[in-house]
């Protein structure tokens, strides 16, 4: 990294490492939300760098909705073991036992139970007062004003009018018992920065990001991979599509894009050439105008 001519990546890296160390120094019980995606992979590498030669001084937390791609789960377990990180996997068992699924509930309610509720429960159970997340401000309009330290009340909720001003590098992490803070070390990175860094650092990522022939159906304008165990609806017929995932989420709700990019440099080239935002293929963001803002108020990342 130090020899890269991409000086802006070094500056972003230094800032992110500063944020990671600052939160670890000031919070009693930090945890890292690990979503297995490309942003999480970058955040994890930054954490390794921040505390080198020591180990990462906090556990990783994965909220498993049980609808994730099997390739993600495999990658998660292998990678956590390889780097010697402590991994906590949490699911909303009760909701799953009661049959929560995106087909019956719709994506909004399903996310509410299996992601948001599960996350809030996991944070409360672990007594975590700071949770690192890989969100970036360029992802979605409602995130443009998100702080690096995003303050949540005792019920985990975000109130846009009650956020603290952030000046210089002086983050204010003081909080009362029960309150917590989400910390976003990648706030100032863009999707392109993430890919350039993955390339510069040779960071391992889930193979779903790379193009190959996969079994898929077209559903609601999205390419849904059936090769990853998504069940087919009546009348649907799977066929082979050369495609890749641009953003990883739950298999039934994340669309693939048609692509030939099977290496990181090719992905970067493709990214620069085509002009569609990465969350376009997330079904959840399009349910309702301003839906991300609504979800965030409720405690979603």
């Amino acid at each position: 990294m130090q020899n890269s001519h991409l000086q802006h990546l070094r500056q972003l890296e230094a800032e992110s490492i500063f944020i990671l160390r600052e939160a670890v120094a000031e919070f009693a019980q930090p945890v890292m939300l690990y979503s297995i995606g490309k942003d999480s992979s970058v955040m994890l590498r930054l954490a390794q760098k921040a505390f080198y030669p020591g180990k990462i001084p906090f556990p990783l937390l994965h909220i498993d909705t049980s609808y994730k791609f099997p390739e993600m789960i495999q990658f998660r377990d292998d990678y956590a073991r390889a780097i010697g990180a402590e991994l906590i996997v949490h699911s909303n068992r009760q909701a799953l036992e009661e049959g929560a699924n995106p087909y019956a509930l719709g994506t909004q309610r399903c996310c509410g139970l299996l992601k948001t509720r599960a996350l809030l429960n996991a944070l409360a159970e672990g007594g975590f007062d700071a949770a690192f997340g890989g969100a970036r401000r360029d992802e979605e309009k409602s995130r443009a004003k998100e702080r690096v330290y995003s303050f949540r009340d005792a019920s985990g909720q975000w109130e846009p009018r009650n956020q603290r001003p952030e000046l210089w590098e002086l983050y204010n992490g003081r909080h009362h018992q029960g309150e917590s803070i989400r910390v976003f070390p990648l706030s100032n990175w863009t999707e392109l920065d993430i890919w350039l860094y993955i390339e510069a650092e040779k960071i391992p990522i889930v193979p779903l990001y790379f193009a190959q022939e996969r079994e898929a159906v077209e559903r609601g304008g999205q390419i849904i991979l059936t090769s990853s165990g998504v069940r087919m609806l009546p009348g649907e017929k799977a066929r082979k599509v050369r495609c890749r995932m641009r953003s990883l989420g739950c298999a039934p709700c994340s669309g693939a894009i048609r692509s030939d990019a099977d290496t990181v440099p090719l992905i970067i080239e493709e990214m620069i050439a085509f002009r569609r935002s990465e969350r376009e293929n997330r079904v959840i963001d399009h349910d309702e105008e301003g839906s991300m803002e609504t979800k965030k108020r409720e405690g979603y990342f």
Partner: protein
Amino acid sequence: MSTAIVNSPATALPLVMTVQLHTATPEKSLLRFTTAGSVDDGKSTLIGRLLYDSKAIYEDQITAVQKSGINRSSAPIDLSLFTDGLRAEREQGITIDVAYRYFSTPRRKFIIADTPGHEQYTRNMVTGASTANAAVILIDATKGLLSQSRRHIYLSALLGIDHVIAAVNKMDLAGYDQNVFQRVEQEFQAFCRQFGIRNTCVIPVSALQGENVVEHGEQMQWYDGPTLLELLENIPDTNAHHSAALRFPVQYVIRPDAAFRGFAGRVCAGTLRPGAAVVALPSGVKSRIKSIISYDGELDSAGTGRSITITLEDEIDLGRGDLLACPDSMPQVGTRLQANLVWLHSDQMRPGKTFLLKHTGRTMRATVSSIQHCIDINSFSTVNAATTLRMNDIASVILETTQPLYFDPYQQNRTMGSFILIDPMHNATVAAGMIVTTTGPSSSSRSHGEVQLRERILRNGHPPAAVWLVDRPDLAAALEREIFARGWHGQILSDAEFDPHQLKAVARAFRNSGAITVLTISAGTYGIRHEIETIFGSEHFIALSSLPEKQCDALAVLLRHLQAVTGDANENQVD
């Protein structure tokens, strides 16, 4: 950069970006700038234009804006909609709070801190400007330099921004008239000179029509300067103090095992090199840098802005909040500081109130002892009679800190000269501060008569306390040294020198002087314990029945208790 790229970013951008990955092209750097404007001068449109013309907006986002059916502009697409974020503010048609936007050209990545121009503008602009190297101030060509524009220029100067750019917008509505532009330009330059802003530039633009934002237009042939984007691409990064004297605040101590002790932090001035002499502050102990550790291997040097970990030649006591500095060029130090304060909170501030002050990695108590004067943001004159500070007020104040604070003046180094004040009750960030200088006690604030214990407590930063050590003479000197190193007021009192009756009298005198009294007691004097405890009060009396055998462990336990007594038991991060 060739002009071809600027003129046709649609085709040139992807090509150059791709090539850059594989070949050694010039460094791609990072520039943070802030934008400020009044409500109707077209700031959202200008930013929308920058993002749109530099291809930072995706097709589906453009479709979403078109689908919304809203178009408040006379252009084919309402560019301001790309940046109006939250639903609440879209409905109201105003933007609240600071929003961060990103775009990139082959030469630079840009971070925009977009600050709204309406009420709370001071708080928002100060926040956005605190991390910016440049400011783009929107001026409506049809209105000229308004009082709001003057405020934006003043705040840029206050926050130490080196490059201030005026984008004279709506030139289309001013008939692209060169005379209109020159009038605004002269006013702007004169006003900037008044506040000593070094680098200024004025550009005539039409954000709506895309003139001189990313591309040169057809309408203003009389203008031969750079476009806004060309200018932003070429501003030097003046925030790098590589050649300045070293300042390295210790952020975190990394100790994976007993053998390794690394000090992690971000270089905020100068360049770290193995072998360089450093002095640790506040202890004053000197050492040398042994190595610079990073995940990517050991480094020969680390310049300003780098986040790295270092080891030292000597084993010295060093922790979060301490500072490593160049011994030949030490920072200033003081407990009484003159600072510019921007009040950010709706709670009013009256002098005499104590806050938590966060400066680099250090948090300590500080009292705003007096308001010297406020700045009238409309006339830029000083107002002396202020007794309180309200939200958006800017004032010069005197602060008294409970610990000596090592700093460089803000205008020399932002990180070393900035602080925030935190309300100790509700934890909100209530003020942003910029240190000007250290100052002695002023005659106006001097009290008369006998010095009271509470005054001593304010100066010492802690109440008097006693540590009762029985048969541990080995600990006393070491503890006294630790107390001294922390800037506390404390001293040993030994029963070897006084009989029990004298000892009580001396202990009382020590207590009245506000000292942390380290009593070293042998078994024979143990009987006066209760009386000594009464002198200091049981909450300020530390007597531990069992202390670890090892000196360093015992010291750590004692210091933890002392910290609880001198500060607040719940606030472990406060010095």
